[in-house]
C-alpha cells in the first residue's frame, strides 16, 4: 500500500532531494578538481563555492528528509526550503555569471524535479486524480500556510524598516548579479585574468603616478591609490560581500546547528565537551581570534580569502550551537515533544518535526544579523591588511587604500573625499540592510510577539 502523503510535501521533497544531490556532486567536484566548468568569466574561487554548495546541499537534504518525515508543519519550513533553493540558484548565477552554464544548471534542476514528479512511480502520490483535483488538493492543503504568509506580509507592510532593509538587500543582490553589465570586466580580465581584481588605469598611472583622481567620465567614482577604478571596486565588491556573508554565516549556521542539535539532543559527555569548547572560543574577542587564525593559516599556504572565511567561520559557529542548544533544552521537555516520543517517533523525526520548527525563528534572525557582522569583520581584516589580497575588489580594502590620502591639499583638505566616502557608504548600507531586516524579523517572526 502506498502511504498517503500530502502533495505539497511530495513536490518539495523530490525537488529538494534532487537539488541537494546535484549540488553535492557539483560541490565535491569543485572541491576536488577546482573549477570543472568552463565559464565565461574564468575560474572564480571554486574552492569556497564548492564548500558552500556542499553545505547547502547537506542542509537541503536534511530539509528534504524532514519533509519526507511528515511534511512542513508550518509555513516557515516550506518557505525555508524555497529560500535555500533560491540561494543555491543565486549562488550559481553569482559565481558563474550569467553564462550559459548557470542557466543550464538551474534549468537542469527544474527538469529533473519535473521528471521525478511525472514519472509513473510517483503518480500514486497524486492519488490517481486528474490535474485539476491535484491543484485543488494543493490549494486546500496550503490554505492555512497561505493565510499565515498573508499575515506575515501584512506585518511586513506595517513595518517600514523591514521593507527598507529588504529593499537594500535586493539592491545589492541585483548589483552582484549584474556586475558584469554594470562594470565591464574586460579591462580587469585583460590585466589580471580575474574579474574580481580591480583594474588599473595605466594611462593615468603614467600621467599622474599614484595620486587619486577625481571622478570623471572614465571613472564615475574616481580612482584610488595606484589608479584603481573605485566604481569597479564598489560594484564587484558587492559580490565579494555577499559571497563572504553567505559563506561564513551559512557555514557557521550549518556547522553550529548540526553540532548543537547532535550534542544537546543526546546530552551526556558529548554535550559537555561541546559546551566547554564553545566556552573556550568565547574566551576570545571574535575579531582578534579570527585575526590570529588568518595569520596562522596564511603561512600554511591558504589563499587569503579562504583563510579569512575559514577563520570567521571557526569563530562564528559556536554561537549557533549555543543558541540551538538553549532552544532544544527549552523545548525538549515540552509536552508535545514527550507526546511525540511516547507514540514512537524517531529521534530525527522529533528533532526535525518538533524541535527545529519551533526554534527556527531565533536562528533565522541571528543568521540575518550575522551576515552584516561577518561582512564588517571581513572588511576590518581587509583594512588591517590581512583580508582580501592586494587589488581585490573588496570594500574594506578600498577604504584601507584611502588611508594615506585623507588629507587632500592645503587649499582643499577634503579633496580626496571620494576615495573613502563612497566605498564606506557601500559597506555601511549593506550592513545596515541586514541589520534592519534582522531587527524587523525579530518582531515579525517571533511567535510570541507575532499576534500581539
Amino acid at each position, binding site marked *: 500500500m502506498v502511504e498517503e502523503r500530502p502533495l505539497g510535501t511530495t513536490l518539495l521533497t523530490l525537488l529538494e532531494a534532487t537539488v541537494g544531490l546535484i549540488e553535492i556532486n557539483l560541490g565535491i567536484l569543485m572541491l576536488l578538481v577546482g573549477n570543472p566548468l568552463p565559464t565565461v568569466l574564468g575560474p572564480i574561487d571554486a574552492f569556497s563555492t564548492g564548500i558552500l554548495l556542499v553545505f547547502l546541499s547537506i542542509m537541503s537534504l536534511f530539509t528534504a528528509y524532514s519533509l519526507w518525515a511528515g511534511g512542513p508543519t508550518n509555513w516557515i519550513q516550506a518557505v525555508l526550503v524555497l529560500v535555500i533553493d533560491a540561494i543555491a540558484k543565486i549562488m550559481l548565477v553569482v559565481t558563474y555569471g550569467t553564462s550559459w552554464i548557470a542557466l543550464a544548471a538551474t534549468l537542469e534542476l527544474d527538469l529533473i524535479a519535473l521528471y521525478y514528479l511525472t514519472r509513473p512511480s510517483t503518480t500514486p502520490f497524486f492519488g490517481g486524480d486528474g490535474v485539476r483535483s491535484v491543484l485543488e488538493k494543493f490549494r486546500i492543503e496550503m490554505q492555512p500556510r497561505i493565510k499565515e504568509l498573508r499575515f506575515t506580509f501584512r506585518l511586513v507592510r506595517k513595518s517600514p524598516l523591514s521593507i527598507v532593509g529588504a529593499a537594500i538587500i535586493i539592491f545589492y543582490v541585483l548589483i552582484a548579479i549584474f556586475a558584469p553589465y554594470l562594470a565591464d570586466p574586460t579591462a580587469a580580465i585583460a590585466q589580471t585574468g580575474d574579474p574580481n581584481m580591480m583594474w588599473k588605469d595605466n594611462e593615468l598611472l603614467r600621467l599622474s603616478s599614484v595620486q587619486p583622481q577625481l571622478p570623471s567620465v572614465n571613472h564615475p567614482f574616481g580612482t584610488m591609490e595606484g589608479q584603481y577604478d573605485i566604481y569597479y571596486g564598489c560594484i564587484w565588491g558587492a559580490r565579494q560581500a555577499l559571497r563572504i556573508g553567505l559563506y561564513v554565516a551559512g557555514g557557521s549556521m550549518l556547522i553550529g546547528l548540526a553540532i548543537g542539535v547532535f550534542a544537546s539532543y543526546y546530552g551526556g559527555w558529548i554535550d559537555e565537551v561541546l559546551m566547554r569548547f564553545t566556552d573556550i572560543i568565547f574566551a576570545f*574577542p571574535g575579531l582578534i581570534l579570527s*585575526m*590570529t587564525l588568518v595569520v596562522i593559516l596564511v603561512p600554511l599556504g591558504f589563499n587569503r580569502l579562504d583563510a579569512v572565511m575559514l577563520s570567521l567561520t571557526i569563530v562564528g559557529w559556536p554561537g549557533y550551537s549555543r543558541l540551538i542548544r538553549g532552544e532544544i533544552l527549552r523545548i525538549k521537555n515540552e509536552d508535545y515533544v514527550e507526546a511525540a516520543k511516547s507514540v514512537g517517533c524517531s529521534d530525527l523525526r522529533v528533532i526535525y518535526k518538533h524541535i527545529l520548527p519551533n526554534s527556527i525563528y531565533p536562528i533565522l534572525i541571528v543568521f540575518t544579523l550575522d551576515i552584516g557582522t561577518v561582512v564588517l569583520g571581513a572588511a576590518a581584516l581587509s583594512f588591517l591588511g590581512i583580508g582580501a589580497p592586494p587589488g581585490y575588489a573588496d570594500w574594506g580594502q578600498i577604504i584601507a587604500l584611502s588611508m594615506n590620502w585623507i588629507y587632500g591639499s592645503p587649499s582643499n583638505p577634503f579633496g580626496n573625499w571620494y576615495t573613502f566616502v563612497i566605498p564606506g557608504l557601500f559597506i*555601511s548600507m549593506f550592513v*545596515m540592510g541586514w*541589520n534592519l531586516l534582522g531587527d524587523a524579523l525579530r518582531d515579525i517572526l517571533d511567535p510570541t510577539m507575532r499576534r500581539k
Partner: protein
Amino acid sequence: MGLRTYILRRIILAIPVLFGAALFVFAVIQFLPVTLRATLYVTNEKQISRLDEIAKLYHLTDPVYVQFYYWLRALLLERNLGTDSLGQPVYEAIMKRMPTTVEIVMYASPIIVAIGLTLGVLSGANKDKLIDQASRVLAIMGTSLPSFWFGIVLLSIFYAGLQWFPPQRVGIEAQKFIGMANSSWRWYTGLVTIDALINGQLWIFVDSIRHLVLPVTVLSLLNSAVMVRVTRSSMLEALSKDYITAAKAKGLTRKEVINKHARRNALIPAMTISGLMVAGLLTGVTITETVFNMGGIGQYAARSATRIDIPPVIGYTIMSAVVFVISNLIVDILYAYIDPRIRLG
C-alpha cells in the same frame, strides 16, 4: 549559597576556561612547521640563527603533551612570548604599549556606560517617542558603521579640515619634550594625561587630550550602541511587570515609577552586557589605534598581523583572552553581589 562560596566557585570555573584557551592557542600553533614554532620562543636576536637549539630546549620535537607543558611553563614562568620580526621581545613590547591602550579604554568606558544607560532608559521609558527613535538610529548606526571608516571620516573632518584633533598619541612638541635627555618629564603611571598633570605640564595634558578625542569618540559611540539596545529592551521588560502596575495603582507619579521601580530593575540585566563590552573594546582598540596611529598594543598586534609576524599576534590574543575572561568574572561577581537571586538561585 553565600556570596563567598559563589565567588570562589566562579573563580574555580574560570580556571579551566583559561587553561582551555591556552590549549586552543597551542593547538592552533601546532599547525605551523617546527622552525616557525621555534621563533615563538626566541627571546633575543642571537637565538634566531640557532633555532635548532631552541627546538631542543623547549622540546618542540617531543610528543605534543610534553611540548604543551614546556610551552605553558615558558609562558607562565618566563613570560616568554617570543620576539617580533623587529627583534623586540613581545612581552616587553606589549607592556611598553599597554598604558596607551589603557588610557583610551579608561576614557571611553565611562562614556559608553553613561550614553548606553541614559539613552537606553530614556528610550525604553518613552517608547516610540522622538528620543526612542533617535537612540534606535544610533543603535543601528553603531552596529552598521565600520569603525575604521567612521574613524577615517572623523579624521578627514576634524584633522584634515578643521585641524582640531590630530592623530597619534601626542603632538611633535610634546614628544620632543618628553624624549629630551635633560627633560624634567618623569613617568609615574605611564598614562600621558595623568603624568602631565603630575609633572605640572598643563600644555601636554591639553595636547594629549586633543589627541585622545577622536579615538575615544569612535570607540564610545560604536560600543554604546549595544548597551543602548540592551538597556532599552530590559527597561521595556521591566515596565511590563506586575509591580509597575501595582506602583501605578498606588498612585505614584510616572517619574517615581520609572526612576524608583523600573529603572533599578532594568539596570541589572544591562550590567551583564558590560562583560561583552570588554570584547568590543578590545576589538575596537585594535582598529581605532591603527586608524589614529596611537601606538598601543592593538596597533602593535594589527601591524604585526599585516606582516604575518606571528609571535606578537599570539601574545596579544592570549592577553586579550585573559583580560576578557577576568573581566567577565568580575562582572559575574558584581552581578551576584547586586542581585541576590543569582547566587541563591
